[in-house]
């Protein structure tokens, strides 16, 4: 008996149970209607963002990306510093989350004693389930003061030759936002990497083991080359997450314009935090439109990173699930 494709429809077709009753047509109709509704919502979101940004797009064009502030007095709006802040904090987050996340995944799959592997993976995934406002609360009340008082001075003392660690110390800064983002994207990278590493074919591992390879050599020559694509997908997914993160970042990034400089200890803001802070001030017209345009930018950036990430992950042959994703 041939293997039928999954799904009631395909099975029904195969069995040629052709007597489609009215109930079937209705049911199928409702289902498709609802799916179309979902598609319409996505299209609607895109449409509403675009159409409402139009005034600002027409007025500023690409200068929107370079104008330095939201200035309702002079009716000049721009997200230059916001883009800078977004890129800096996200890059920081990814830079540190990759080694920690992939390292954790490697530990969980290859070195962790089997009985605690699953519970430990679950604990790491729990990090993703914590609402971002709680990360914001923690960041604002606990992390920021501590970083300002201890970590930032320490970094300036020992690594102050780097332009990143120069300048006055602020608790509410790009640095703090970056640190919080590391914690927030960590479970995503770990989760995707772990799933991908688990699918490394045993035959590949065995090929190296049989030659007398150490654990690390098996990982380096069999597991990582195989998992590279999927892990990259996970990293890009995490990047998307960092680029769009709103609450935690808004609460710790300082929300003050600083001149664009490499100093991480300065306050700043991100695209998402601009939206959160300015929507309530926005008077109808250009101001409103500018806020929406910021939202459109976030939408586009995260859409692109997401698409790239999913394509990479699909190439590894599966979709990732789990709490973190």
């Amino acid at each position: 008996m041939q293997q039928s494709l999954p799904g009631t429809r395909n099975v029904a077709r195969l069995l040629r149970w052709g007597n489609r009753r009215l109930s079937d047509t209705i049911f199928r109709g409702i289902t498709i209607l609802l799916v179309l509704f979902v598609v319409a919502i996505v299209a609607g979101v895109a449409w509403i963002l675009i159409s409402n940004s139009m005034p600002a797009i027409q007025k500023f064009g690409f200068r929107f990306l370079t104008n330095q502030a939201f200035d309702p007095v002079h009716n000049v709006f721009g997200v230059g510093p916001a883009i800078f802040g977004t890129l800096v904090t996200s890059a920081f987050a990814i830079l540190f989350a990759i080694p920690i996340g992939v390292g954790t995944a490697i530990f969980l799959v290859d070195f962790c004693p089997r009985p605690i592997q699953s519970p430990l993976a679950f604990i790491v995934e729990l990090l993703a389930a914590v609402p971002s406002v709680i990360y914001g609360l923690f960041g604002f009340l606990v992390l920021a003061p501590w970083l300002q008082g201890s970590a930032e001075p320490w970094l300036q003392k020992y690594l102050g030759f780097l332009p990143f660690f120069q300048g006055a110390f602020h608790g509410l800064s790009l640095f703090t936002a970056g640190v919080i983002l590391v914690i927030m994207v960590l479970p995503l990278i770990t989760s995707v990497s772990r799933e991908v590493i688990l699918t490394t074919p045993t035959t590949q591992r065995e090929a190296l083991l049989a030659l007398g390879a150490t654990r690390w050599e098996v990982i380096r020559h069999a597991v990582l080359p195989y998992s590279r694509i999927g892990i990259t997908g996970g990293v890009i997914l995490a990047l998307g997450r960092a680029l769009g993160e709103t609450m935690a970042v808004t609460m710790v990034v300082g929300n003050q314009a600083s001149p664009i400089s490499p100093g991480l200890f300065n306050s700043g803001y991100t695209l998402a935090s601009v939206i959160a802070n300015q929507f309530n001030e926005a008077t109808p017209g250009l101001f409103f439109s500018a806020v929406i345009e910021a939202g459109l930018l976030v939408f586009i950036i995260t859409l692109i990173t997401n698409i790239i990430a999913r394509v990479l992950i699909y190439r590894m042959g599966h979709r990732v699930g789990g709490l973190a994703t």
Partner: protein
Amino acid sequence: MSITVEQQQPTANPFQAPRTAHNARRRISNIAIVALSLLATAFAVAVLLFLLLYVLRAGLPYINLDLFTKIPTPNGEPGGGLANSIQGSLILVGLASLFGIPLGLFTGIYLSEFGGRGPIATGVRFLVDVLTGIPTIIFGLFAWIFIVVPQQSFSGLAGGVALGIIMIPIVARTSEVVLRLVPNELREASLALGATESRTILRVVIPSARNGIITGIVLAMARVAGETAPLLMTAFGNPFFNSDITQPMDALPLRIFNFAESPYQAQINQAYAGSLVLIVLILITSFAIRWATGGFKHGGR
């Protein structure tokens, strides 16, 4: 047999590690990777534990009956509670579910039972996956423009819609996965007995996957219960009780956001207490889901 002198002399054990610099380096890098990856894991676990314990310690003293029955006091006077926020959250999640569950579930049904591997289904599936990656504030903007601005008023309805959209991909994805796990033989048996497609799906397939579907729904509800960004410009917040969805409405995460940056210590304390409530809720649902999906791999009954 006789043992010659040569045999008696211990030949170098070929299975011992050759004492070369090369092998020393191999040994070191092997140990290093174990140590570093262990460190990474320890870091992740430590951060989570520290966070949880800190919120527990800071919030527990302020968990009392008042928290669940009274509304916030003005100007940080001692006392009061977060009752309106909790009520608002419940209403908003309920509203979101009304909107998001049917849309998400039927999308999952479509993808599993009707779409299969066709190009349209693949496209929809991709769309759903991409939807999960969009920052939630965008949906808040959508509801803001679509509902709040025309109504000239912040409202619980707008908040519910924004949260509902967030729920759709979560429910759709988990539903599709569990529906697919239902063995095809069940469908064949049902159809062969003369049941219609719709009957098969409704009476046979969905009930088989019931646990997994409920899991997905609970996951989605827990997720939106903690969302703040989309509510900023939709529900907006409300220091009083309000169950009218056409008016601004409070929610626990909104209140936490508000109080976290407050100059009054009493409000900060309540922010911690509220966070503790939220975290406990998340933990319970996460553990429940894990427990439920433990028996899940055996076929989804």
